């Protein structure tokens, strides 16, 4: 597989949200606005790339039986690094995303890529895979965020184009499920190759 297709396969074919349907919790919870979705995607991408790199390095020496705990510890380490960095440099973002930053540890995308890709591929390939899947995840979250922000608050990336409130339900819980459901329908209809 060429290096470029390693990155681009995460966009549509192996898109973590719409095609693999992994990591649903942050997808639904943090996409109240386009900016929040984008930030959550980038935070996950950070952990995904670094953990993929380290796991592909240690995979040959880790006994098969204890590999999952080892992967989880590696992922948790990078999540802690991310938490400390965000608290130091972007405390406002850390406040908004809240609980969902530590919960990157149990995001099935990260562990899923470790299991499915990083533990049997080279370092460079694993890093590119992390980058591709990370970009795919960020794109999906941003798209969901844009749709919910337009309908829910009448703005895009904080730029308001209507006076007053939008349809409040789209910022709240039901809107998250509804928008994801309908976007998935569109994805199945037009993008997914069967």
């Amino acid at each position, binding site marked *: 597989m060429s290096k470029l297709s390693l990155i681009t396969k995460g966009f549509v074919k192996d898109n973590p949200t719409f095609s693999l349907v992994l990591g649903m919790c942050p997808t639904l919870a943090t996409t109240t606005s386009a900016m929040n979705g984008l930030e959550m995607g980038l935070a996950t991408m950070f952990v995904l790339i670094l953990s993929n790199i380290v796991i592909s390095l240690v995979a040959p020496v880790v006994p098969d039986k204890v590999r999952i705990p080892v992967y989880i510890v590696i992922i*948790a380490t990078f999540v802690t690094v991310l938490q400390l960095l965000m608290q130091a440099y972007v405390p406002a973002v850390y406040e908004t995303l809240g609980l969902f930053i530590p919960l990157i540890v149990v995001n099935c995308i990260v562990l899923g890529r470790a299991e499915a890709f990083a533990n049997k591929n080279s370092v460079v390939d694993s890093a590119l895979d992390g980058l591709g899947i990370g970009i795919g995840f960020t794109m999906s979250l941003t798209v969901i965020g844009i749709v919910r922000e337009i309908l829910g608050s009448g703005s895009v990336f904080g730029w308001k184009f209507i006076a007053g409130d939008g349809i409040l339900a789209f910022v709240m819980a039901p809107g998250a499920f509804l928008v994801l459901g309908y976007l998935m329908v569109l994805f199945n209809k037009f993008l997914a190759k069967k």
Partner: protein
Amino acid sequence: MGEYLLIIISAIFVNNILLAQFLGICPFLGVSNKLSTAAGMSGAVCFVITLATVVTYLLNSYVLAPFGLEFLQTISFILVIAALVQMVEIVLKKVSPSLYQALGIFLPLITTNCAVLGVAITVVTKEFAFGGTASHLLNLGEATVYALATSLGYGLAMCLFAGLREHLALNDVPKAFRGLPIALITVSIMAMAFLGFSGMV
């Protein structure tokens, strides 16, 4: 006593862990095809969430907090949860083989259920205010009740949804909607119904 009641109502209905807080969605969508598996999963999750919350709460207040090691919460909690799930599995296998048979396949999955880690982190970091009391961190009793009620809310939403989904499976759904999309739209309507509880507490 009244405060405990408020915690229970708010955790089950108002801030339902699945429909309002979005924790543990993956197993929710994954095993809700049949009511019996959904009930099995809910039972296992209920057990692990309550146990894990008590253990991580004690770990946090007697080991991490006194030494100023709160930044290790994420990494130590996930290890505790993983070990606990493993232990529960071993104990159940010996003590109650029938329960192990029923819950068996779900137990390993629970380690990566974000509801478990989510509740464990929430009770040690978030300040709550119930029924006019000043906002405060939960004590051990409240934390246990909160964890138990939250996981009952998980079970409630899970079983309701599995019931709906069993009926959904018999219907003729447009091709692009089949599977998850229609399930998500159904959840959305359920979440709307649960919004009706907000303002109760």
